[in-house]
């Protein structure tokens, strides 16, 4: 690894900054004096190797009259990250900044989101339209501190009418634009579609050939980032875990790490191991659905059902621990929510036995299926360079051969003591993505076995007290602060940017960067020129969950 953290510092030197500090071993934090330099900074970062923008997160400060922009640059290969801040006026007329999308393509949708939610206008953005929002919010910027939600919510049915009008106008515009004698048409792939879930891909196609795809998202937009600001720090986990139910533990872990950082609390080793254990169980339950869904898109439901069979046993463990199969709310700032009853380990062993007994069959029948490989090897190819430029993460990134995994790059919980390696598959096609997810299933089981052994040993030797160690006290009121935490979620990197005010009882701002956002962003690039048969397969292989897509 020739490139070091000093290189990042050097790249920042040539700009006028208020401060540059070592925020974490792998993070630099800098504040620019002038927002006009942001494009130059992005270029410098790109030249240094930090080619991916994780997300853009504006923070609204109405008293000071400023909108604070946070840019999170990442180098996915060499574990170097940089957090760049700058300030722009919050007055809607002057709330402008240069877009960095022409330099860093992965910023495209993140800037659109910042525009939709906060009204930050990005100059030179190639396609600055509203994203996620329903038409009744157009031009209202709901995440601004002075947005009057109560007044807006009074006329709910009026809003629905507006949405319907907008939809009908769009369909009419399509009809007017397309030649009635021609074979071109616009298909609405979703939300009422057997394979889509709540997302609408506006597919422009000529017969079976795709000319372009424009994803319309926001059908499960719950405004979680706004919702948490009205809950206390513990209550917020309910919203955070609903990022996507398939893997809820790891998103809670990310949020709790950010809270603990601001509170200055260190959790016990036992709680760290529990977070690892539960996190991997949730990852398995998500990957089981992911691999099943991949085959569902090709009309074969058998693997999904076989996977569900195994998944139930892992959900049993979560249920025994927390009382809920899916909405566990099991991770809390300060540790894990419940003390551990060691009988849970027997249940876990049952799940592991079931997994070991079934995984061989699944591998022979499905993972090595020649028809699937024949079909999926040819489509959805993403090279390593493209994957990095587009800011993909998780199994999708590793399927392109990039060695990147937050669990190893920036260890959290007890992952620094776990024996594991990057699961990478070269190739970057849909089949390789399936392969990666499948291999990660086995990896997760290995991690669970290690965690289980460590906890059992620790409890036996009296090092851990499962009835007390699960939690350390976190104050109800937190000091003013700002923290960034990253976790490897089942679908990829989740970045939590938490801002608190002095003596705050609830988060002032929480930005959740979720992987499906970038994965959906690239669908158009992957599907253009392919046929209709490829839409579900590519969509399924990108491992998208609409929950974390819309948040």
């Amino acid at each position, binding site marked *: 690894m020739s490139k070091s953290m000093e290189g990042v510092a050097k790249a920042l030197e040539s700009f006028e900054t208020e401060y540059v500090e070592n925020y974490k071993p792998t993070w630099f934090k800098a504040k620019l004096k002038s927002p006009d330099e942001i494009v130059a900074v992005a270029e410098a970062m790109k030249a240094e190797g930090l080619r991916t923008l994780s997300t853009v997160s504006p923070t609204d400060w109405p008293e000071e009259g400023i909108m604070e922009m946070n840019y999170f640059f990442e180098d996915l290969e060499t574990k170097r990250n940089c957090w760049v801040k700058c300030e722009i006026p919050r007055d809607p007329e002057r709330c402008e900044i240069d877009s960095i999308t022409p330099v860093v393509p992965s910023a495209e949708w993140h800037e659109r989101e910042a525009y939709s939610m906060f009204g930050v206008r990005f100059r030179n953005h190639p396609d600055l339209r509203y994203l996620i929002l*329903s038409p*009744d*919010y157009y031009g209202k910027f*709901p995440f601004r501190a002075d947005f009057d*939600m109560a007044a*807006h*919510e009074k006329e*709910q*049915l009026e*809003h*629905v*009418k507006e*949405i*319907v009008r907008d*939809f009908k106008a769009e369909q009419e515009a399509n009809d007017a634009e397309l030649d009635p004698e021609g074979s071109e048409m616009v298909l609405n792939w979703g*939300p*009422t579609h*057997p394979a889509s*879930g*709540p997302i609408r891909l506006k597919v422009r196609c000529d017969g079976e050939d795709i000319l372009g795809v424009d994803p319309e998202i*926001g*059908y*499960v*937009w*719950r*405004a*979680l980032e*706004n*919702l948490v600001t*009205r809950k206390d720090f513990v209550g917020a986990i*309910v*919203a955070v875990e*609903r990022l996507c*139910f*398939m893997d809820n533990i790891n998103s809670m872990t990310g949020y709790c790490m950010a809270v603990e950082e601001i509170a200055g609390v260190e959790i016990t080793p036992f709680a760290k191991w529990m977070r690892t254990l539960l996190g991997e169980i949730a990852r398995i339950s998500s990957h089981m*659905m992911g691999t099943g869904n991949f085959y569902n898109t090709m009309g074969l439901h058998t693997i*999904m*059902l*076989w996977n*569900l*069979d195994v*998944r*139930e046993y892992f*959900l049993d463990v979560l249920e025994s621990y927390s009382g809920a*199969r*899916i*909405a566990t709310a099991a991770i809390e700032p300060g540790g894990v929510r419940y003390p551990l009853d060691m009988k849970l380990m027997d249940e876990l062993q049952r799940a592991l036995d079931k997994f070991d007994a079934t995984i061989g069959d699944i591998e022979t029948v499905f993972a090595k299926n020649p028809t699937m490989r024949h079909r999926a090897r040819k489509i959805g190819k993403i090279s390593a360079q493209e994957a990095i430029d587009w800011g993909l993460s998780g199994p999708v990134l590793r399927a392109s051969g990039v060695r990147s995994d937050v669990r190893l790059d920036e260890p959290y919980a007890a992952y620094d003591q776990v024996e594991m390696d990057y699961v990478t598959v070269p190739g970057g096609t849909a089949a390789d993505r399936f392969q990666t997810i499948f291999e990660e299933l086995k990896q997760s089981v290995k991690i669970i076995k290690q965690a289980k052994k460590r906890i059992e040993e620790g409890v036996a030797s009296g090092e851990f007290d499962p009835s007390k160690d699960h939690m350390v006290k976190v104050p109800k009121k937190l000091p003013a602060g700002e923290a960034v935490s990253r976790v490897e979620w089942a679908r990829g990197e989740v970045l939590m940017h938490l801002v608190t005010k002095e003596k705050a009882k609830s988060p002032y701002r929480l930005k959740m960067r979720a992987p499906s956002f970038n994965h959906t962003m690239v669908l158009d690039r992957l599907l253009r020129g392919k046929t209709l048969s490829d839409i579900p397969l590519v969509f399924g292989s990108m491992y998208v969950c609409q*929950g974390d897509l819309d948040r």
Partner: protein
Amino acid sequence: MIKILDFFDYARSESLWMAHFCTGCCSLEMAAAMGPRYDWERYGYMPTPTPRQADVLMITGLVSKKILPALLRTYAQMPEPKYVMALGACSYDGGPYNDSLSVIKNPTEILPADVFVAGCPPKPEAIIEGLETIKQKIKNKEPSAASQGGLWKEMEF
């Protein structure tokens, strides 16, 4: 003659097909209900790919403003007699998203549901129990709730 009609009513109650439409997280537990452990096909439930062949529309959890027109359109496309089942806390009053700015707080005032299934998300057993309740409703010859009222009748979608 009455006996024959009774047979068809009975057949209708014993064969409920679901429209495949997910608006929220509860569809995850719906998948589990289809799975090997709970296997709702034992009772004759089956998902269909298009609303045209469905008998039951499931509101799977939250209904956002953006998806509501699609939900109503799906309901309108279903053939009579049709029933609505609301899953989870969200479809009752918004649940955990009660004060969220994009979620409809009273989806069942707009599209009244015949059965509510409690939980967040409801367990698969509860979903099956809810469907059994609809069966009983059909056997008792009760009219579906959405045909009796609801704001959807006045709405354009």
